[in-house]
């Protein structure tokens, strides 16, 4: 597909009982963009992520990725198609080492079979060695060098965030979905993360779709910002345009609020 359109979400809806978690949301992401999704708590952002990655099957709407419909696919098929994600509350494989976490991330790109492993076939061994070497590269790239043999649970918080991204990168995705990559970080760490995300796009040619609460980060690195509230998309546009949008200000601060700067004090519980 030579089209620049990487992800095309067409009026996706997801309902939990009587609650409309995501209601007819459209979203388009071009190749090489950094797109943000913001919104108050409970706006349906993570549910929307889950609809794209196959964890939930949307009741209505279609998700087209890289020219291919992925609606209703299982998460592992979506991952194979080239979509990788991180989680809001870090979900590493905590009793596996850092390297093993990354190797698990490569799962869909490795072809090794059970029989290859049992008989120790040379192709299998070469592939495992190559995978290990690539994992070491990713360690260095994400600033985790020297920590490869630590258990994931023994890493400091900031490194755990990086490891989650490294694990996602390991599956060589076209699109990286980051769910609040700076949650719980101090301003300095947030700054580092911001540069890191930008490097991912610039050096690795990744397209990045992130949910984020840190307004400074969102406004600095996003090409476009989408805003959700009560399961619906209420605004889309450049950071500057979104900041001035009265609907957005209302969603965050209630009717009557005008000063957009106060948005930055919003934090996730």
């Amino acid at each position: 597909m030579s089209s620049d359109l990487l992800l095309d979400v067409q009026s996706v809806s997801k309902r939990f009982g009587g609650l409309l978690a995501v209601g007819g949301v459209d979203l388009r992401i071009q190749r090489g963009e950094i797109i943000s999704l913001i919104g108050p708590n409970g706006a349906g952002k993570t549910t929307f992520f889950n609809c794209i990655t196959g964890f939930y099957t949307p009741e209505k709407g279609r998700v087209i990725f890289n020219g291919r419909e992925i609606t209703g696919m299982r998460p592992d098929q979506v991952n194979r198609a080239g979509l990788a994600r991180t989680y809001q509350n870090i979900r590493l494989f905590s009793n596996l080492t850092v390297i093993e976490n990354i190797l698990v991330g490569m799962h869909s790109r490795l072809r090794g079979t059970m029989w290859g492993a049992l008989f120790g076939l040379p192709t299998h061994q070469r592939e495992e060695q190559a995978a290990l070497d690539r994992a070491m590269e990713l360690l260095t790239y994400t600033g985790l060098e020297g920590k490869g043999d630590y258990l994931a649970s023994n890493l400091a918080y900031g490194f755990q965030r990086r490891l989650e991204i490294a694990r996602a990168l390991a599956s060589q995705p076209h699109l990286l979905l980051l769910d609040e990559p700076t949650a719980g970080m101090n301003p300095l760490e947030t700054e580092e993360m911001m540069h890191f995300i930008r490097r991912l796009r610039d050096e690795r040619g990744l397209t990045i779709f992130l949910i984020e609460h840190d307004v400074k980060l969102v406004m600095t690195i996003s090409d476009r910002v989408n805003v959700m509230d009560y399961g619906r998309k209420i605004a889309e546009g450049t950071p500057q345009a979104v900041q001035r949008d009265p609907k957005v200000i209302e969603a965050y601060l209630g009717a009557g609020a005008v000063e957009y700067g106060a948005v930055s004090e919003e934090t996730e519980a």
Partner: protein
Amino acid sequence: MIGQNTFRYSLIAAVIIAILTLTGIFTIFDRRDVIAEVLTQSLALFFTAIGGTAYLVAQQSSLTHPRDRILNAVIGAGIAVSVVIGLILLSSSVNLSFVFPQFRDLTETSLIFRQENPIIGVVELFTVSLFLGAAVGIVASLAPRTQSILFAAIGLTAMIGLLQNDIRRVMTIADAVSLFAVFALSFEAMRRSNVQPLVQRILFGLAIGIGSALILVLIANSGALASGGWLRPSNKIPLILNLAVTGQLLSFVAVFGVIGMAGAVISRTPLILHNAAWSLLIGFLALGVISWQDEMNLFATVIIFALISGGYSLLPQIGRNAEARFLLLPHRQRDSTRLLVVIFALGVMAFVPLFAGLSISNTINLTMLYITMGIGLSVMIGYAGLLDLGYVASYAIGAYTIGLLTTPSMLTCGGLSPDQISEQGLNIATTCTGVMTFFEGLPFAVIVSALTGMLLGVPVLRLRGDYLAIVTLGFGEIIQSLVRSSTFAPLLGGPQGIIQIPLPTVDLSIFNPTWNFTLQQSTEVYYLYIFAVGFAAIVVLRLINTRLGRAWRAMREDEDVAEAMGIHLVWTKLRAFGISSAFAGLGGAVFGATYQSIFPGSFTLAVSINVLSLIIIGGMGSIPGVVLGAVILIGLPEILRELQDYRLLAFGVLLVVTMLLRPEGLLPPQAPRLSERASHSPAPTGD
């Protein structure tokens, strides 16, 4: 000064000891000696209980001065022994067997040192206990490391004492010392030299071994091996050294050559392998001492105790040095060293039945059966995180498959049922055979178990944790009911099971007409179990650090994330079900063929629980852990036959203690150090 908890701890211990006494444990344990004519099992248990109490009391943190520790230990021992003395006196005057059926007159046991007058005996017991308390108080004041050496040595010496009657006295002291000496010589020479390449070191070791062998030939032929010669302190003929006299020089030189090579290789190995090798040699020496003294008498006990405590105090440091040298080796040499050690270990294992004798071989076989199954269940629970309580189902399927395939049936007996054949006065074994021989049937049994395991997995794919446990628990019961049922009785024998399963035979008559072996005795069947364990271990070791193994472990950690990382949950789970069931089936098949009969009663929930307990105690997902767990939970109770009645009690105590002190098991799995395997490996870190 008396510690604040002294009385509390002593009284709690006293109550526990009293309950144990009332169960009649001292009468039951009185039948065997730990040290011939000095210490019975009863007394050993009693001293362990008293000593344990004293140790617990002496370890209180409020006690700092050794004098205080000794004082409190004596008080603790005194309180604990008083209760037992009360019970001894009670038992001699009142018959309590209507309340405590096993509780007998304790004055007839060794607890009172076989004194005619119970009062003298009791006083003696009291005095000895106080001295023991004081001794424990002194021990408790020693450095922790010294303490653990002492305890390990006492425990192992006692273990050897318990086993003394089951060990075949094959290894003489002269053999043991010469093996030890050659190994140590080669080890020391290679430790000092700077020879790096593995091949060169092996050659050096070989040369040392052969050289020593030649010297030994001269010594052996100088008359030292004649009856009464100095190399023959007892009347037993040394097994290995005698080769030099009877002209089997080649075998003689080969044995020592191999030992020399082993010493050279072991000089640069990881700590655990190094210590295992030395422990084995110390074990040889201990065996030699027993065969020399012909029983575990006081002299043998002292020597063995000295050997073990000496070994334990020296080994860790030497081992760490060996490991440091090992880590300096290039990556490839490290791999080949490990491989060589495995080959040596296999070689050693091949000779185990020679020393073990029938009874211990039998125990070892049973232990290995459980190791095979433990490895399988480890895949399921330890790696894939699928809590399976119906593991016995696959075990039964494997056993019944081999039973069906190899037992003479109407199909292969010309339409006659086995009963009719016996009625006609014919021998079944010669009249007809099963559909297949054991070795032809074995792959089928394994495959059938694997497939049924996967089939059973299909309905429970979506279940997790305790829900899965409950459903699989049901599977185990269903299989039992099926094999018991009258519907399948014509095929599976119903409650009578399948009997007269033929023994496995190894037919090598193409090489030599006399090479047609039937594996009958436990010392022969042993090799079959070794094969089963080895097969299971190799499969798991191969898989565990590859794509499938990582997928299992990722799934165990977090199923949702694993799926989002591209892992196909259905296939990954089904493979875990299949592989783990295959090992259970393998175990079942070997079990069925070697015990020659299978009954529904052999396939109860207890089997699943045993396997589960042993992997919990040993450490989930670690093969050394499974081995240790099986030895503790299956092997030990089998050896300590007197303990049979207390098996469940011991199980319970062990599980509780393990969960409290080492919730990950005794030998939890080690995280692999993968960064060392990368092509551009960073220098190994110091820790």
